């Protein structure tokens, strides 16, 4: 079923209602929450095989002594973002029946036990990288040392920690103990803006972190834990660029002046869709066919449409996001739009490298599950064979050569697994209503007052309004 986000929420709800009550779809598993956008139902045999293959990565790269998984194949380092992908993968495989409950419980327990012991950056928050064998704080070269923290990586971790807490409450207290160690005083300011930290010449610097897409997604992550991220949650400041007549939103903060690029990619919108249904963070009421964060839902729709339109007009398979490479420079922002240009592919320093444009598998599968269209059918066929049966799915397929990017990552395989789970279950963040250790700590103010802003302020946060 194709979604039409332009129609009013009321009409949308009515439409869903009619569909649910009068059109029983053969073979579909109904969750308690009704139908969800995109593809619904049990996994086909092929899709199930895809999930098993993606899980190979996590079997092969598991470090039993620490419970962590390598972020790249055979590369014993990880980030909070990648650990989150692992959490997503774990929830997917246990709920899809690929691993049993004991294995799941064992892996989750081991991971959080390890994580409750790691040293934090400046004794505040988890460092950007850890060695998966030794648990040491490391730099990007996997050498011991602390380099800073990323608000966005932490936010994604908080989203997945929350999902596990709510879906598998037996782990809630363990997870809360882990997060209660953290000190949030430098990651969010009183205006609700997020900051990352880095060390420069022995000095710690805090800089605003997050651009349109990732910033709003991350703001919800902190909101789930009671923090006020009002300013970060606003889509502003943004502008739009017309690509094939579709107004694509991009972050207005100037990459020529500030170091951060304003890349528009699929990933942030896909993750927001499958994990939080493009709802406001704490929305536990609305059906999955209603999006209570309508601005992000609308932006996501455009992000999809413009990629389909590019295929329609040029014949180039398109599912873009940031991804790894199998050669130098090893990582690119393969963007729908960034730094002034549509279909721009750049390195971290901003060099234009069109030869590394690719169909990213995690993006392709994400579009496939959220938009049930002929184009995403094609995307699925295009990527479905890009795997190594021993290691998992490749990172992508180069646009020009149509050869696979022979790199395997936890992030790619983890996102593919959570996407497949979404098909069966819909929105992954489901609230149990249970009061956890963290909730009690907040209520009793056991957490130092300066380190977070209380839950009650969240209710004042007004959802951003659509820009006319």
């Amino acid at each position, binding site marked *: 079923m194709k979604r039409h986000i332009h129609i009013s929420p009321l009409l949308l709800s009515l439409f869903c209602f009619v569909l649910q009550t009068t059109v029983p779809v053969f073979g579909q598993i109904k969750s308690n929450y009704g139908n969800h956008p995109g593809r619904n139902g049990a996994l086909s045999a092929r899709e199930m095989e895809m999930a098993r293959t993606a899980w190979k990565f996590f079997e092969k790269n598991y470090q039993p002594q620490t419970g962590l998984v390598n972020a790249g194949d055979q590369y014993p380092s990880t980030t909070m973002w990648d650990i989150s992908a692992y959490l997503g993968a774990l929830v997917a495989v246990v709920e899809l029946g690929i691993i049993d409950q004991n294995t799941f419980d064992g892996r989750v327990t081991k991971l959080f036990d390890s994580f409750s012991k790691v040293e934090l950056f400046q004794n505040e928050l988890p460092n950007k990288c850890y060695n998966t064998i030794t648990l040491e704080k490391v730099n990007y070269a996997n050498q011991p040392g602390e380099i800073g923290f990323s608000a966005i990586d932490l936010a994604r971790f908080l989203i997945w920690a929350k999902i596990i807490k709510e879906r598998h409450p037996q782990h809630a207290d363990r997870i809360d103990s882990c997060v209660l160690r953290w000190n949030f005083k430098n990651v969010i300011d009183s205006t609700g803006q997020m900051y990352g930290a880095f060390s420069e010449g022995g000095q710690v610097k805090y800089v605003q972190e997050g651009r349109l897409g990732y910033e709003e997604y991350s703001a919800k992550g902190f909101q789930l834990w009671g923090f006020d991220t009002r300013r970060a949650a606003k889509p502003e400041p943004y502008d*739009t*660029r*017309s690509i094939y007549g579709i107004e694509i939103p991009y972050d207005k903060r*100037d990459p*020529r*002046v500030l170091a951060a690029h304003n890349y528009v990619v699929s990933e942030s919108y896909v993750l927001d869709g499958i994990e939080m249904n493009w709802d406001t963070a704490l929305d536990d009421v609305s059906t999955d066919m209603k999006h209570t964060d309508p601005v992000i839902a609308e932006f996501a729709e455009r992000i999809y449409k413009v990629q389909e339109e590019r295929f329609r007009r040029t014949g180039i398979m398109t599912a873009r996001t940031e991804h790894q490479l199998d050669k130098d420079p090893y990582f690119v922002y393969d963007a729908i739009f960034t*730094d*002034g*240009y549509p279909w*721009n592919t750049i390195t971290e320093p901003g060099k*234009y490298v*069109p030869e590394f444009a690719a169909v990213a598998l995690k993006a392709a599968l994400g579009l496939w599950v959220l938009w049930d269209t002929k184009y995403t059918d094609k995307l699925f066929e295009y990527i479905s064979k890009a795997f190594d049966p021993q290691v998992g799915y490749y990172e992508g397929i180069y646009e020009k050569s149509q050869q696979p990017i022979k790199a395997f990552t936890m992030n790619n395989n983890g996102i593919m697994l959570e996407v497949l789970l979404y098909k069966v279950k819909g929105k992954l963040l489901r609230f149990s209503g249970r009061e956890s250790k963290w909730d009690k700590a907040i209520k009793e103010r056991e957490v130092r007052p300066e380190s977070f802003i209380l839950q009650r302020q969240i209710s004042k946060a007004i959802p951003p309004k659509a820009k006319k």
Partner: protein
Amino acid sequence: MPKFRTFCTYTTVVLTASTIVFVLCVCGCGVVVRSVGEGIENVGNSLKEGRRGTLTPEEQFWAKTAWKYFENNYHPKTGLINVKDGFQLATMASVGDYLLALIAARDFEIISRHEFDGRMSAILSFLNNMPLFNNELPNLNYSANNGWMSNYANQQGELGWSAMDIGRLMVALRIVRDRYFEYGEYIDRAVLRWSFCNVIDSLGNLYGGTRVGDRIEHYPDGKLGWKEYAARGFQAWGFPTQKSSSLDPVDVIRMYDIDLMFDGGDERESNGNNALVTLPFLFDGMEFGWENVGYITTDKRYVTQAQSVYEVQKRRYEREDIFTARTTRILPEEPYLIHDAIFSNGNKWNTCSEDGTYYPQFSAVSVKAAFGMWVLWKTAYTDKLIMVVNLLFDPERGWFEARLERSGEVERSITLATNAMILECLYFKKNGRIYQPIGNSDYFYNIYLRDEFKNFNKCFPTKRE
């Protein structure tokens, strides 16, 4: 040393940045120049909003101040004028600018008929005697005092040619030719010296040329705005210019609810720029009214684009309270040439050097752009805009280049381009559309080209298939 560097940069700019003006015409292929396209109707004057009328005493003073530049920087031996105050270099674009300034100065009776004739004789004599790059076309740079071809350091040497510069000169020559019959033959002879085989192809694409070691490399010349203007110049002398007269390839950017076209070529791989600036639209407006004039035609979208270029700058003032009149300028310091653009290299209101590097500190209200907007659009905005720049002059040396956006500081470069622009704007105010066709095809250039024994292998229109 500072002069030397300034010079280099300027030259580069003039040559490759399409900063300078050129005109072209679109004509049918292979037809005798003048008779081509004569059936095309002049669609009427779309410049109803512009300022018109005799010059006020203040405007006469502005014109006299601008002419100071041409008194101070004149080289009687060559007939040339420095591109920049005290800097002895000339380009074909600067010669084009000068010719229009000269007819304006005469029209305002700042100079006598005798002085006008002396200056005109000297510059036409130069054009008919100057050495040509590879014996084909005018070089990018000439030494203003010696008349020889010069390199970026203004030392004797040759560089190549710019189709944009040559186009601007061809527009100016056409205008002067059709207004002053007594110089027509000598203007025709200057154009007939050149060889057009490598500067324009049969589809009307324009190419620049540059010497690389022993070889001469040709490259597509001109971005949206300048390209179509330069095409007017080639068309004015009978060359078909379908490709260069068309705005395509275009891309579109929405700014303050206006869909603005910009050059659709991808400048990322060439480390170049696609700066959308105001000046070519001002030239085209004053000289041709953005319309087909006689057989000299242009893309129908050009007038819309010109209007949008004005409107978007006006809206920036209305919505942000930032005075805006942007175009490429010569700087007194690095990077020497700056594209102060409405849009360039993916960014709105970008101010960048030739290679696209961002220099926000050089954003400014350009004197030449402000005067052009003032004369072509008689609006409340340009009434205010002119107040921002109308005291930026040295009464003995001429008009300054700009007022910087972020501080109000005056950018005190004094250039031929800005001073010529002020004279041209006032000439337009007094006389209306500057190009006035004579409507006669039996003149020296055409008669010469009809003689099959005289037109050898230089790819003039009559010899093209």
